């Protein structure tokens, strides 16, 4: 086992490993900057991630690279420089997101679409706010089920799908749950929850192809042609 762990990795795996480390570091920064708000928690989170990454680059990186079988210093430096963009790109994107800046060049539209759509839907902001609002309303039934799931769904599906498919389903489930809890029937409330999640799963499967498209491309304005299935008002008048 030890022999397997200490054996130097093949060359492509070393490069991939080094690149992956840098990307994860950048992704950590991206999440920290995106989630941080003008609050003490956000500032502390950003500082912790920053200090951790600095410590990693100062002391830990050579050990990790040595473990990967990359020992000579020039190779380490070369790999760091080569994969530097992987750290910088998410950080730059996150800072731009926070400053509400977007690239105006048409050639870079794809990046705007890909990253900003994901960043604007990053789970956390809305969920925290909604839960805080619900908690502020008073004790008892302050947190019906489904808020976390809703945030996860918001990350994947378009606003329209959320508004017309998932939000009504969750709202009805929450209303039923609250009724059951007010009637002091926690067992029935749990059953409502399980049944609601099961039916949401069905909606999810039905909407998944559209969701995977909207995750990357929903900021692009599409002009839908009127569907042939919708028919025409002339046809209706003729039918009347």
């Amino acid at each position, binding site marked *: 086992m030890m022999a397997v762990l200490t054996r130097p990795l093949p060359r492509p795996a070393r490069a991939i490993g080094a690149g992956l480390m840098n990307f994860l570091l950048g992704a950590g920064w991206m999440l920290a900057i995106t989630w941080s708000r003008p609050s003490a928690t956000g500032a502390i989170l950003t500082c912790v991630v920053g200090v951790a990454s600095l410590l990693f680059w100062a002391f830990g990186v050579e050990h990790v690279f040595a473990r990967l079988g990359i020992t000579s210093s020039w190779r380490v430096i070369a790999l760091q420089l080569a994969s530097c963009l992987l750290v910088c790109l998410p950080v730059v994107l996150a800072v731009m997101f926070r400053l509400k800046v977007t690239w105006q060049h048409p050639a870079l539209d794809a990046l705007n679409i890909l990253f900003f759509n994901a960043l604007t839907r990053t789970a956390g902001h809305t969920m925290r706010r909604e839960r805080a609002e619900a908690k502020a309303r*008073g004790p008892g039934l302050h947190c019906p089920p489904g808020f976390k799931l809703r945030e996860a769904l918001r990350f994947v599906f378009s606003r329209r799908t959320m508004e*017309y498919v998932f939000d009504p389903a969750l709202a009805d489930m929450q*209303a039923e749950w*609250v009724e059951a809890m007010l009637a002091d029937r926690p067992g029935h409330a749990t059953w409502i929850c399980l049944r609601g999640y*099961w039916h949401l799963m069905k909606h999810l499967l039905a909407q998944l192809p559209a969701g995977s498209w909207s995750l990357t491309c929903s900021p692009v304005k599409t002009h839908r042609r009127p569907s042939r299935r919708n028919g025409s008002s002339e046809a*209706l008048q003729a039918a*009347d």
Partner: protein
Amino acid sequence: MANKLIEQLLGTGAEGLPSLSPKEAAILQLLISGGEKYGLQIVAESEGVVGRGTVYVTLSRMHDKGFVESRTEEQAEEATGLPRRLYKIAGEGTRVLRAWERAAHLLRAKVLT
């Protein structure tokens, strides 16, 4: 086959008659008779025609077609959870339902004679 027969019965211009699935027809009939309803109310009153797993997708599609209108419920201050969505039939939905009912009536008459 049935569509072609209906088109023949309704005459010229009926080729573009909007499609209406049995579920959509059931929902429209419920909404036309009962006013505004929640998704779960529709499920409960449809007596098994519309299921919990499909009602919101169907309503969303009907909204796209212009058959139904919807609004979110106004919540009280102390209410918890998301506001529920209320659905009511739109003018287009009424016209489509009437057109299909008439088509079905004509078809039935034609078959019986």
